[in-house]
C-alpha cells in the first residue's frame, strides 16, 4: 500500500520547474490525462517533455504547450498540433525529433540499465550527425544513448496496490518502455485493485518499476481521428 497515493496532485507533488518528464501514450491514446491536468494546474514551467507526440490543441500535452510550461519536447512526430509548430518556428520551443523506434528503445534502455545501443535508423541522415557509426555484418549503425528523466508518468488500464499494471489494446505503446525509465515512475490507472487480485500471468509491467500509483479521477479518452466503416 505504500505506493498508493490519493490522486494526481499528490502523485506529482515533487515535480518542480525545469524537470524532465517521460509521458506515455501514442497520440491521445493511453496518455496520463489526470497527471497532465495536475501539471497544468500546478503551473510548473521549463519542463522537458519526452513523449512520442505533443498532444493536440487543448488536450494532452497541448494543454501544457498552450500554457507555455514546456521548454523542450523530445518526440518523433508532432504534426497534429498547430500551436506546437507555431512555437517551434518562432523559436519559443526547443525540439528534438527522434525516430520512433529509437525513442522507444532509448526509454527501454534507460529502464533496463543499458547506456547505449546501435541502430540502423537514421544512418546517413541528419539524425546521425555527431554520433558514433559502426559496421556490423556489413550494415551501418549509429550509437544512441539511453534517455533518462526525473519522472516517468504513464497510464494503464488496471493496476494493483503493488504497482503491477495491465494495459488495454493499443495503449501499451510508450507506457510500457517508459516504466522505470525515470528516477520516479508514476502510474495512473482506470481501476486500482488490492494486490493479489490481478493474475500474475497477465501482468504487463511488474510493480518493481512503479513508485507511485493511483486511480485517476476521470478519463475522457478523447479520440483524435474518429474513422468508421459503413454497415453493409
Amino acid at each position, binding site marked *: 500500500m505504500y505506493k498508493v497515493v490519493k490522486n494526481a496532485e499528490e502523485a506529482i507533488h515533487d515535480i518542480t520547474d525545469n524537470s524532465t518528464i517521460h509521458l506515455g501514450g*501514442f*497520440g491521445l491514446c493511453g496518455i496520463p490525462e489526470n497527471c497532465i491536468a495536475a501539471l497544468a494546474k500546478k503551473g510548473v514551467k521549463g519542463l522537458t517533455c519526452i513523449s512520442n507526440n505533443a498532444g493536440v490543441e487543448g488536450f494532452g500535452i497541448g494543454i501544457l504547450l498552450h500554457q507555455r510550461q514546456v521548454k523542450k519536447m523530445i518526440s518523433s512526430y508532432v*504534426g497534429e498540433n498547430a500551436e506546437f509548430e507555431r512555437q517551434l518556428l518562432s523559436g519559443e520551443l526547443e525540439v528534438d525529433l527522434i525516430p520512433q523506434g529509437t525513442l522507444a528503445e532509448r526509454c527501454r534502455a534507460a529502464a533496463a540499465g543499458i547506456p547505449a545501443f546501435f*541502430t540502423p535508423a537514421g544512418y546517413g541522415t*541528419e539524425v546521425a550527425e555527431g554520433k558514433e557509426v559502426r559496421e556490423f555484418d556489413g550494415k551501418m549503425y549509429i550509437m544512441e544513448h539511453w534517455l533518462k528523466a526525473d519522472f516517468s508518468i504513464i497510464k494503464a488500464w488496471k493496476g494493483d496496490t503493488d504497482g503491477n499494471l495491465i494495459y488495454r489494446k493499443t495503449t501499451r505503446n510508450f507506457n510500457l518502455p517508459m516504466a522505470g525509465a525515470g528516477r520516479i515512475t508514476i502510474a495512473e490507472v482506470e481501476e486500482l485493485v488490492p494486490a493479489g487480485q490481478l493474475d500474475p500471468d497477465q501482468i504487463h509491467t511488474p510493480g518493481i518499476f512503479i513508485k507511485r500509483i493511483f486511480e485517476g479521477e476521470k478519463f475522457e479518452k478523447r479520440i483524435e481521428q*474518429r474513422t*468508421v*466503416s459503413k454497415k453493409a
Partner: protein
Amino acid sequence: MLDKDGIAKRIAQELKNGYYVNLGIGIPTLVANHIPEGISVTFQSENGMLGMGPFPFEGEEDADLINAGKQTVTVMPGGSYFDSATSFAMIRGEHVDLTILGAMEVSETGDIANWKIPGKMVKGMGGAMDLVASAKHIIVAMQHVNKAGESKLLPKCTLPLTGLHCVKRIVTELAVIDITPNGFKLIERAPGVSVDDIKKATEGKLIVEGEIPEMHLYL
C-alpha cells in the same frame, strides 16, 4: 493514368500469402482495401498491433484501439497488441516482410526523403526512419510529380533524407519503376500513359529496355 486507389490497387498485387506488412499514412493505407482474392496478409501498425482490421462501425469506436495514423480501427482474429519497443523490434529485426510508404522525393540510388521541409514543415519522422533502415522490401507509393509540377524521382534528393539506398520499387500514377544499380528502371506503364510521358516526368536517369507493358489492374 491512375488515381490514388489505382496506385493502391497496383501495389496490392505485390502482396504475397503470409506477408507481414506495414502501411504508411496516405495512399499506402488504401492498399488494405484492395487485397487480391485468395491472398492473406497481416498488417502491422507500429503503435502496437498485428492484425489491424478495418475501421469500426459507427458507435463501436474504441479510444484505446487506434492505428499509427491515430485513426480508430479494429483488430482481426489472431491479432495481438504490444508496446512500442517490441513493435520496433519487429521492424528493426527485419521480421516485417514489406513496408509501403509515401515520399516527397526518391533518388535513383534508392534514397528517400519524406519527413521534413526545412523552414516550412516540422512534423517529424515518426517511425519512417526505423522502417526504411530495416525493411526487407520497400515500395514507395506517391505521385510522380509534386504540386509545382516538378519530378519527385531525382538523381539526388534535395530534401533532408529519411534513409539511404533503401527503396526497391516505386508505384506512381504513371508507372512502376524499380531501383537498380544503374538507376530507375521502367517496369510498367499505367493505362493510357506513354513511355515519353514517363520520361518527361522523371528527372533521374530512367532505363527503358524493350517493350514496356501496360499494367494490369485486377478489379
